[in-house]
């Protein structure tokens, strides 16, 4: 049986794709906020995801880029400092990798690759260690420090894709295509789940963040494995669902992106969004 049939039968298609639809809406809303400027002359939001100015007052700066410039030996001016602090505070409080699942434009692409892999039954390839991203993160900061330039930003697929979409630039096809085909043919969830230093950064940022998924009704689990199949970071589910190394029903792993697909896909409503202090559990 294909993944998610159970959920669609009990909750209907929309119920079984609720958070997926909301995420696609969120991702496109972010992009549209930048695009209504060049398209319709409504300059509510200027810049791009690296740094932006909303309604002429609210600066937002990507803290990972900010840290890279610090590593390169440059202290950015106050606008970038305030912008980075706002974004940093938001994700540290709410959920680090919310960025990956709800904002990042690479996510629909790697989701598509994962969907095709499931659909075509591709099992090929070799998956790198999922800690590789932390080494890439360290490497990006080390090279910035050694060279004084933002070396990673030359190849960062996240930066390149969002910038190309917002500014209508060409040239993103190579690196973005590389990510897509890597995820499709070489490593399942290879980029977002194993290599991306930006995801690693936001993960570290949100270690103690509030928004969490809980396996509150874990007694209802019938081991259908749909959540493991759909989850972009399947290793995060087991401790909460099967009490491996923890009693709490909360998914506390920093790798969890809060995408909510486990909630969607579960036909028995095991999972829910909650806050990190909610320890209610039926098991």
């Amino acid at each position, binding site marked *: 049986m294909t993944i998610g049939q159970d959920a669609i039968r009990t909750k209907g298609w929309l119920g079984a794709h609720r958070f997926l639809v909301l995420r696609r809406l969120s991702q496109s809303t972010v992009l549209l906020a930048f695009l209504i400027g060049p398209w319709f002359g409504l300059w509510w939001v200027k810049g791009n995801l690296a740094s932006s100015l909303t309604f002429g007052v609210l600066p937002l700066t990507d803290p990972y880029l900010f840290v890279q410039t610090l590593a390169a030996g*440059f202290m950015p001016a106050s606008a970038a400092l305030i912008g980075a602090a706002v974004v940093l505070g938001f994700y540290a409080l709410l959920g680090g990798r919310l960025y990956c699942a709800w904002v990042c434009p690479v996510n629909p692409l790697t989701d598509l690759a994962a969907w095709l892999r499931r659909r075509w039954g591709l099992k090929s390839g070799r998956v790198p*260690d999922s800690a590789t991203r932390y080494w*890439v993160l360290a490497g990006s900061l080390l090279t910035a420090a050694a060279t004084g330039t933002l070396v990673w930003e030359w190849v960062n697929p996240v930066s*390149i894709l969002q910038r190309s979409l917002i500014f209508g630039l060409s*040239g993103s096809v190579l690196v973005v295509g590389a990510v897509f085909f890597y995820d499709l043919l070489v490593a399942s969830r290879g980029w977002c789940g194993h290599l991306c230093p930006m995801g690693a950064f936001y993960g570290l940022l949100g270690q103690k963040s509030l928004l969490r998924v809980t396996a509150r009704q874990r007694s209802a689990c019938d081991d259908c494995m749909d959540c493991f199949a759909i989850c972009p970071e399947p290793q995060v589910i087991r401790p909460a669902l099967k009490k*491996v190394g923890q009693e709490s029903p909360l998914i506390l792993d920093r790798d969890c992106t809060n995408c909510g697909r486990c909630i969607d896909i579960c036909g028995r409503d095991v999972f829910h969004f909650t806050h990190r202090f909610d320890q209610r559990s039926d098991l």
Partner: protein
Amino acid sequence: MTTNPTAKPQGKTGALPASTARRKFLNGIAAAAGGGALLTLASLLVARPAAAQPAQALRPPGAMAEQDFLGACIRCGLCVRDCPYDTLQLAPAGSAVAGGTPFFNARAVPCEMCDDIPCVKACPTGALDPQLTDIHEARMGLAVLSDHETCLNFLGLRCDVCYRVCPVIDQAITLENIHNPRSDRHAMLLPTVHSDHCTGCGKCEKACVLPEAAIKVMPLKLAQGRLPEHYRKGWEEKARHGGSLIGDQIEMPVRGLEDKAYGDVRLNGEAAPNSLNSGWKP
């Protein structure tokens, strides 16, 4: 599933003996570190050759020196959005200019030198120096009349277009009046760029009437030479000290040129009026 050595320990590794568990753990770290190093080195490989600024890509006003700029610019494009003349562009990924950084091509759209410098005000990081408040202090590049063979003024015509369009006319570009040795009876008015006033806006390059501009704005590093630190110009030192520091030169008579200044070997003592060498001194 691969192990995740940096994640919190997820219980004991089952029934594996300690040495096997340790080996698995270390192998995991090695694989992750190797992969990380590989990606990092690959990014260096891409970044290194691209770090040189191409000759026809000029940075916005107030941009730091290229090396520093590449460490300070976060590629947000706010300067591009606030440029009222669509002069500035963001470089696409994989182009000769570092991907995502702002630049302009003077021949396509030059800088209009706005008084309020909106691009500098938009920059959130200060990669475009907020200290720059007078656009005339900007040094985006330096105009160089690079081709003396095709410049119409060098051919003896009165084109003068680069001089006329210069926003800092008569300071950044002057017309130097010299004798035309080809016709021997006309003047050549040579457009001459002065680095202490040229902002590098590129209006001269944009306006050059030739199919390929004879005057081009280049990044300062490419356009300018530099004297060694220890060089002193004799005439400047002389003016500063109110006289020669090494005493007056002894003038020895030269046979046949007794009535001329020392070293003056020109046939008639008078220089042509308005010629470049009219101020000639031995």
